[in-house]
Every structure is written in C-alpha cells, then in structure tokens.
C-alpha cells in the first residue's frame, strides 16, 4: 500500500503531527487556507477521506466547516492549499473532480416547478448517465418515491426532498459523497433511514464526507471525525478514540452530564460551551 506524508497542525497541543495517508484517498485536502477579505476562515487545514469511509467534519457555527466543503466543491477559490478528488486537482481539473463527487448541499433546492422524474432526468443528463425507464423505476422504488414521482419538488415533504437530493448526489455513483448536515430537520425515523443509506454507501466503497451538528450522528456512523474550530482542526480520530483521548480533560468532565463521557462532551470540552452565532 502506497503512503505519503501529510502535515497536520494540532492547535490544541501546538504541535505538528505527521501522518500517513493511504493512496486510495478519494479526497485529500492539503494545507487549505480560505480567506474572506480580512477574515481567515480556514487555516492550514489538512484531512483525507478514504474509500469505504465515513469521515465527519464537526464544528460549531462559523468554525470553517462550510468553507472547507465549499472549497472542495469548487464553489470558492481558496487562498492556498491543494484539494484532490479521486486524484483530480479541484483547481486545475475542476470538471473532472466534480464528475467524481456527489454533493448534497445544506441549503439546496431544485426548481420547485420540476417534478421528481424531471429532476432525475435533468441531473442524469448533466452527469452523463443513461437513465432507462427500468433504472428510473428502480431509483424511485429505492427511495420510496414511486407514488410521488409526478409531484413537484416544491410539494414534497422535507424528508422526501432530502431523499431526492441524496439520490441526485449518487446518480452517477461517485467515488466521493459530500453530505452537508443531511439530517437537519428530519424526524428520527427518516434520520435512521439516512444513516442506514450512508452505511450502505460506505459498504459499497464510497467515501463520505459528512458535516453535522449532531454528535449522536457522528458517533453512530462516522469511522473518523475531525473537530474544527476557529478555522483549525483541533483533533482527528475515531469517535471512540477521541473520547478515550480526552476523557480526563477537565473541560470535558465539566461538560459531561450523566457521568458517561460522550462525543458531545468531548466536542464541548474542546470547542467551549459558548453559543456561536
């Protein structure tokens, strides 16, 4: 297995960690910096997502998660750093990089006048996917929207809209799937269903980058998580590893509520209990 060195700054310990990143990474972010005029939103961030891995990017509001994601998606031009999707440079080979990623944006919508079938046809054309009637039926059955296929997007419930959005993100079977707070606003059943879908995608070899505010979700589905705050990655590990590493941290103990240390306690311990806007 080929490996290469990646430098990652661990701000909580003020030291630099050298880590090996496997060559099957479907996403590599190296020393990413994003600036909005004078505001340095993302500072020297590096991480990678492997094939068959769900990687969680966790952070409070304004921590830099969406800026990182936007840079990966090519929606903003970073100040510096490199981003590779399935080996393609996002800056120089943007179309190829985007052809190999599926995206479910946080605040996304399709034209509300189009129905589910028309949206599927639009995006299958855009991604160059041959969508036969059988394939369309199979997709609609999979997401339980066969009965609602003629419904306009604007008439669908929140959960149904999320399912359409996810199926569009996966229509071209991308190597990398970006999910930006996908379970926000979903009821517990729909959320559990989405977790199962994410796990099924992981088992099929897709790499998933997930941003979420739900620590329960991160603990339940992520293989590794990075906690980001003030534009810097504070720590990267498995959810269990993070808990073990910080269970004796006084801030984490103070944050714990029922004696048992959870990922949320670690998160609050590391990022502070102050509410962000």
């Amino acid at each position, binding site marked *: 297995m080929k490996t290469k060195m990646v430098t990652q700054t661990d701000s909580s310990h003020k030291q630099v960690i050298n880590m090996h990143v496997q060559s099957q990474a479907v996403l590599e972010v190296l020393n990413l910096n994003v600036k909005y005029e004078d505001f340095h939103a993302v500072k020297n961030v590096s991480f990678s997502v492997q094939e068959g891995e769900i990687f969680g990017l966790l952070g409070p509001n304004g921590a830099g998660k969406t800026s990182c994601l936007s840079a990966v998606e090519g929606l903003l031009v970073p100040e510096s750093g490199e981003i590779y999707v399935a080996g393609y440079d996002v800056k120089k080979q943007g179309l190829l990089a985007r052809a190999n990623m599926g995206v479910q944006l946080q605040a996304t919508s399709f034209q509300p006048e189009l129905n589910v079938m028309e949206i599927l046809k639009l995006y299958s*054309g*855009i991604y160059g996917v041959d969508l036969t009637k059988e394939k369309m039926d199979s997709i609609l059955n999979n997401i339980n929207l066969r009965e609602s296929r003629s419904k306009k997007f604007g008439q669908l419930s929140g959960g149904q809209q999320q399912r359409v959005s996810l199926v569009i993100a996966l229509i071209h079977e991308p190597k990398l799937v970006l999910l930006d707070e996908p379970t926000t606003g979903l009821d517990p059943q729909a959320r559990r269903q989405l977790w199962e879908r994410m796990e099924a995608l992981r088992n099929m070899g897709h790499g998933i980058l997930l941003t979420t505010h739900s620590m329960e979700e991160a603990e339940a589905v992520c293989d590794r998580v990075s906690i980001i705050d003030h534009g810097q990655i504070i720590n990267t590990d498995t959810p269990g590893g993070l808990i073990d590493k910080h269970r004796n941290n006084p801030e984490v103990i103070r944050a714990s509520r029922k004696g048992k240390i959870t990922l949320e306690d670690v998160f609050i311990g590391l990022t502070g209990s102050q509410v962000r806007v």
Partner: protein
Amino acid sequence: MQAIPPTSTVLSSLLRADLTTQWRNRKSFMLILLVPVVILLSWKPAIDKLGGTFVLGTCLTLGLIAIGLMGYSNSVARDRDKGVFQRLRVAPLPTWSIMVSRLAIQLMLIFLMATAVFIAGSYFDKITLSASGYIMGYLASIMGGAVYLGLGQMIVGLIKNAETVHSTSRLVYFVFIMVGMLGELGVLGKEIAEAVLWSPYGTVKHIIASSIHTGSWDVSASKALVATIGYAVVFSGLGIKWFKWSGSEK
C-alpha cells in the same frame, strides 16, 4: 472514474428543464404579454395620429422591459435564493452553460411576445408590415431585449435578496413605462422628452420603430442603435461582474 459529459448533452438537459419551468410559469408570462397587447388595443383610436410603427414600437419595447425586468431578473433571483444555481454549480458542467440555457429561453419569449404583438396589431388594429419589416422587427426586438436582460442582470447583480430584487424590478419597470411613455409624448415637458429619446427606453423604441418601417432607417436610428448596443454592453458587463451565484456568497 467518471468522465465529463458532452456539453451538448448538458445543454439539452438544462434547456429541457428551463423550458419545463417556463411552461409551468406560463401564467406569469401571459401577464407579461398582457401589458403590451392591452396598450396596443387601447391605443387603437390614436393609431392614425401616432402611426402604426410608433404604436408597435412602443408595445414591443414595453414587452421587452417586462421580460427583462419582471421575468428574467425575478426568476434568476428566486433560483439563486433557493440554491438552484449552487446545486448546478457543483455538477460537472461549465457555469456559462447555466446562463446560456436561461438566455435561450428568454430569446424564445422575446420571439413569442413579438409574434403576439404583431398578430394583435394586424388583427385588431390592422397594422401590417412587409415581410422584411417583420424580420427586422424580430431582430431589433432581440437587440432591444439584450438591453433589458442586461438591466435585469444588473439588478440581480447589485441586489442579493430575492424579495428586494422583485420590488426593485417592479419599481424600475413602472418608472420605465410611465416616464418612457408619458415623457416621449411630451406630457412631462420638453427636457424629459429629449432625455427619454436617448434613454434605454427611447433608443430601443427608436430602433424597433425604424426597423419595422422599412425605408425609414436614418442617421438618428443608427445613433440609437449604437446607444442601444452601448447600453446592452454596459448593463450586461456590470451585471456579470457584480453577479453572485449564491445569496450568501461573500
């Protein structure tokens, strides 16, 4: 590894979707059509005094203003607000293809609007043109349409909020109609009439009226054409420069 789909496939998919969206919004287009056609009918008694080409030119200009300011700018602002553009931009398509598809639909609307005005003019007001008059009328409408699509683009470039775009474009539309029509007829005074002549309203109306009346093209029409092209270039240039694909883009 996924490959980049051919641009022709991408464009045809976008066009089909934009056409479907437009078809589902046909009520709003009918309302846009209503203003020039109603003015055409209501001015019937004044045709002998003002001339058929003057009336047709005015109605086509009003239709173009409505398409650019009421139709195009509002649909772009709404889709930007809802994140439709952001979703398209994370797909493997060149960003220009998103706007080319939208503009192709607007071109079709301009053609439909001009056809409706020509038919209504011929049927109700007995204003008929030569074949070259109709062809030149369509071409001048497209040229004039570029000015108002550019102006619509400038408004969505300047203003991020969809509701504010909606109210601003309505206000500008109202000002253009009232000041343009009344000013041109001299109701608002000589100075305003002179200013209107070289405003986007006046120059567009001038080139359309001169185009449909074959043989009436003169130096002032050529000057109006240059001014029209200038307006289209400036409005579109600024509109593209200021435009943000997302309402929250910094």
